């Protein structure tokens, strides 16, 4: 028996008794699929909200602290005339 014949024989064995799909398969799949979709939408929305909150926080902090302004020097000025 060559390779093709062997594969055909195995195919026939596997095809022998087809199982019957349950009647509630479609509604169950749609229910779970809808839940997956909704969860994904909620997760995306949460991510956007977190991003927006972070942006607002950064802006408020930047306006309040103004980190680009050089702080007044706290060290003693260097001596120039002595």
């Amino acid at each position, binding site marked *: 028996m060559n390779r093709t014949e*062997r594969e055909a024989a*195995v195919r026939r064995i*596997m095809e022998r008794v087809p199982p*019957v*799909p349950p009647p509630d*398969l479609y509604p*169950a*799949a749609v229910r*779970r*699929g809808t839940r997956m979709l909704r969860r994904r939408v909620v997760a995306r929305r949460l991510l956007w909200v977190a991003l927006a909150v972070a942006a607002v926080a950064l802006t408020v902090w930047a306006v309040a602290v103004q980190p680009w302004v050089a702080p007044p020097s706290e060290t003693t000025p260097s001596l120039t005339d002595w």
Partner: protein
Amino acid sequence: MRERHASQGARRAREFESFVAGAAGRLLHAATLLTGEAPDDNPRARRLLTLALAHTYAVWDRLRGEDPYDRAREYLATRFARAAWHHRGGLLSRTRAHPDSALAHLGPQERLIIVLRLFEGVGEEQAAALLGIPRERVHALCDRATATVLHPPRRPAAAAVEAGVAPS
């Protein structure tokens, strides 16, 4: 906007329903062979198929011309591979096939390969890429599984128990 959303949902439901009506039988057959359950008592295969179909439903609008059947089959195979990997060392009864199954003498990975290659007609390269194993290994596993199905060992139960106990 809301109207368009609703009509899109209705279209998706319609298309998905006809897809399930056409593909469920074939996919359930493949799933039952994978889990190695008897054709008339296949709770694990049904669960696996429901999950795969739910996943297909969730990505339906983003398929962009891709075949939903391929997507469902891909999900079925990878999900089964992951579950088989996790239960490898656990309860043997979960991974060992039911005697009524056509693939009763095969291990989970051999069942997976033979179902993908011969029952579903997936190419060697594609099966290897899908499972993340070398093409040569797919070839060898498929050959071995074919031989086992055609010439089953005489005392399968004893052999399976020995094989399960020996490595530990």
